[in-house]
């Protein structure tokens, strides 16, 4: 009898809540997101109904929430679908490092005010990778379990070690006869020393070229100094030379400093003039030389404002019929609209550093990121994972430091992130946190966090309010 009474008085819920996080938006509506990145917007009344268990079955809000797996009446499907999407997003955790950055030389042919690689300036005698080390690095890379890998030659200016770059590519191609991986090679160069022989080799081996372009001449030359010539003029000349001889287009990377931050529209126009299909607007990394120069930096607020203005401008350009995208926004949209990993190693969880990306220094030391390598150069060697001539890649990947980074980048365990509705699309950078605090564990409300949140919030708002034309443009960015 008593049991019966209990059964009657205990209200049976018509639906179960799935794990979700939420935020009150300035519009008064709520934004909700689930573990695997499903999301919905709710009015205040509907949100209160949801959490007080009084949502009417079949109401508009109910239909939306159940379709987005934020509530369920079923036993298994919503959970299985969530698990399946989450697995798809986090598959990279199991597939091994895919990006291998090899520092060929610390030397450089030019001098940039914001250099975060702390390169030696032209004329200084800089350490270079020897053939012996190059062989060990190549072998280590080929022993990585990933089927698809990207090997990025970096510096300094890797072209200063051109013979070693060529040697390494040929050596890895030989090793790959047995390993049978899908390898892409990327040469990160300022293009200033490009010659006929290099272009032919780049073309022959299908090497991708990643370069730097900060805007029109006045902006570009402001912080990129090349002895005896305008870096911009020579860059354009060599870019055209390269692209007239090869089928691939070089992708320029923009470094945003205080100089071009407020002129991003001009920078975008310049990229379009040069026939680029997009631009990657990412904030300056305040490591190395950049940290010493306080005329380069800007606040998170300043960046966000300029970035969003740039996005609005790019949308306008698209509406005029020019296909052009901002790569960071495109990347985030892909995370919002699909359950796939984008291959990008930053801003994800678990952190890509040490897991999806490894950096090999000229002497064979391995670091989880470029920043970690810089810190080691300035005396803090705690971030070194190992050396390819002393340890197997497996042991390097299993090093204490890699584990610490991994453990410190799970948002479900980080105060602030654990309740943030944007965390399914975001990630923390434990190395940056370490450089600022001496500890890997991130803290919420950092300026990094503020920036990512604002950008994601803006993107969701755009998607929600998009007319058909804007929606088409935003979707075209993920295609």
């Amino acid at each position: 009898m008593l049991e019966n009474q209990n059964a009657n008085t205990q209200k049976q819920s018509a639906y179960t809540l799935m794990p979700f996080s939420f935020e009150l938006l300035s519009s008064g509506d709520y934004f909700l997101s689930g573990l695997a990145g499903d999301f919905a917007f709710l009015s205040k009344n509907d949100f209160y109904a949801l959490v007080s268990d009084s949502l009417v079955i079949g109401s508009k809000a109910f239909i939306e929430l159940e379709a987005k797996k934020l509530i369920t009446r079923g036993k298994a499907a919503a959970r299985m679908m969530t698990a399946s999407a989450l697995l798809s997003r986090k598959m990279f955790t199991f597939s091994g490092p895919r990006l291998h950055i090899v520092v060929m030389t610390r030397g450089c042919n030019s001098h940039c005010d914001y250099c975060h690689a702390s390169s030696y300036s032209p004329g200084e005698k800089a350490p270079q990778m020897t053939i012996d080390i190059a062989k060990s690095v190549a072998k280590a890379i080929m022993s990585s379990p990933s089927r698809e890998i990207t090997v990025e030659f970096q510096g300094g200016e890797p072209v200063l070690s051109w013979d070693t770059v060529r040697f390494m590519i040929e050596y890895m191609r030989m090793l790959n006869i047995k390993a049978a991986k899908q390898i892409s090679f990327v040469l990160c160069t300022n293009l200033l020393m490009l010659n006929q022989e290099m272009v032919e080799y780049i073309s022959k081996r299908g090497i991708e070229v990643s370069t730097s372009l900060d805007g029109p001449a006045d902006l570009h030359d402001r912080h990129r100094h090349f002895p005896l010539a305008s870096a911009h003029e020579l860059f354009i000349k060599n870019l055209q030379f390269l692209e007239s001889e090869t089928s691939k287009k070089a992708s320029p990377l923009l470094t945003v400093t205080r100089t071009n931050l407020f002129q991003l529209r001009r920078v975008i126009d310049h990229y379009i003039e040069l026939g680029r299909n997009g631009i990657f607007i990412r904030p300056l990394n305040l490591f190395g030389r950049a940290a010493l120069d306080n005329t380069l930096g800007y606040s998170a607020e300043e960046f966000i404002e300029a970035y969003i203005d740039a996005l609005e401008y790019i949308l306008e350009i698209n509406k005029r019929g020019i296909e052009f995208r901002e790569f960071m926004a495109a990347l985030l949209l892909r995370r919002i609209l699909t359950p796939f990993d984008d291959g990008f190693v930053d801003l994800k969880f678990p952190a890509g550093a040490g897991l999806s990306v490894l950096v090999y220094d000229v002497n064979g030391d391995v670091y989880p990121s470029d920043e970690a390598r810089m810190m080691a150069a300035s005396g803090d060697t705690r971030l070194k994972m190992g050396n390819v001539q002393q340890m197997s890649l497996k042991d390097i990947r299993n090093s204490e430091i890699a584990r610490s980074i991994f453990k410190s980048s799970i948002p479900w365990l980080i105060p602030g992130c654990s309740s943030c509705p944007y965390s399914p699309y975001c990630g923390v950078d434990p190395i940056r946190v370490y450089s600022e605090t001496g500890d890997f564990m991130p803290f919420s409300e950092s300026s990094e966090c503020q920036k990512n949140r604002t950008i994601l919030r803006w993107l969701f708002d755009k998607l929600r309010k998009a007319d058909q034309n804007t929606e088409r443009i935003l979707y075209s960015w993920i295609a």
Partner: protein
Amino acid sequence: MRAEQDFYVGKVRAIKNGIITLASKGASKKRIPFSAERPVSIENGDIVLLTETDDVHVLWRSHSKDNVIIITNACNQMCRYCPQPRTADTFSNVAINRALLSNLEKKDISFVTITGGEPTLMHSALIDLLKQLLKKNPLASIALLTNGMEFDDMSFAYEIVKAGKSQTRICVSLHSDSPFIHDSITGVPGSFERTALGLLNLHRTGADIELRVVLNRLNFERLPDIAFSIGMNFPFVSHVAFMGLELHATAAYNAKEVWVDPPAYMNQLKRAIYQLQCRKIPSSIYNLPYCLVSKSLWAYMRDSISGWKKTFLPLCDSCLMKATCPGLFMTSIFQSPSIRPIKTIL
């Protein structure tokens, strides 16, 4: 149910001098008069059913890609827009299928659609059928039309995918991204749950999966949401088919509730197809004529209505696109009032 066989299934061997000669495996030849009342479109190689009263039904057309095996009339859903008459299985259905199968030769089995009712209700019969078809023609291309619910049983999903080898595409009807709307269309509470689990199981067994979304008044408003849900939950499908309604049987009865004029949902359909395309999921439009579809979507249209079911209106005669138009269902109780001849392509 009568145990006695009261029909004859045979393959047309000759049509001469008003006489059709039928041959059948394991039975004697039969000659029947071919008069004006008979269906005119009988060809050599067709497999026909001769009933007790000497009615002739073509079971299999030798030159068609639309041949269908109805393995059962039974169904575990009661879809509001179902165009199939609801009938019970009889002894004859099963026996006719057996006779049809025994007469099928390798060359007949290039393209086969297995449907129902709900074919997966016949667990072992379906597995046998797939095995037999692929034994006769290992390169046959088979489509299995299903609501996917039975695949919530992983071992059954595995058995079917194993029997169908890589030659079988499993075409699963999905009515909405919303379990509530999906269930109210199928009339079965919990049907979305089972179909969703079925899809995940099929994917885990490596099946080739197509999703079929029948466009109707109850689901058209959420077409972009369906695209979103497919992209998020079922991104592994090979193809999504958006299908126009056939206003026949139950659908005809519920026409008021389910029918919506295609121009009314064209915007949602455009968005859905574009969003799927950006996610690299191919899609097509079945069962709609050119005049009801936005020009920007014409490239997605397929000539999907079986020849014998296809019709046109008198006003279609002056249409520039008639020759390649997928046409209209002859079986529908009425046609869209928006049908009109296309006079200019620009």
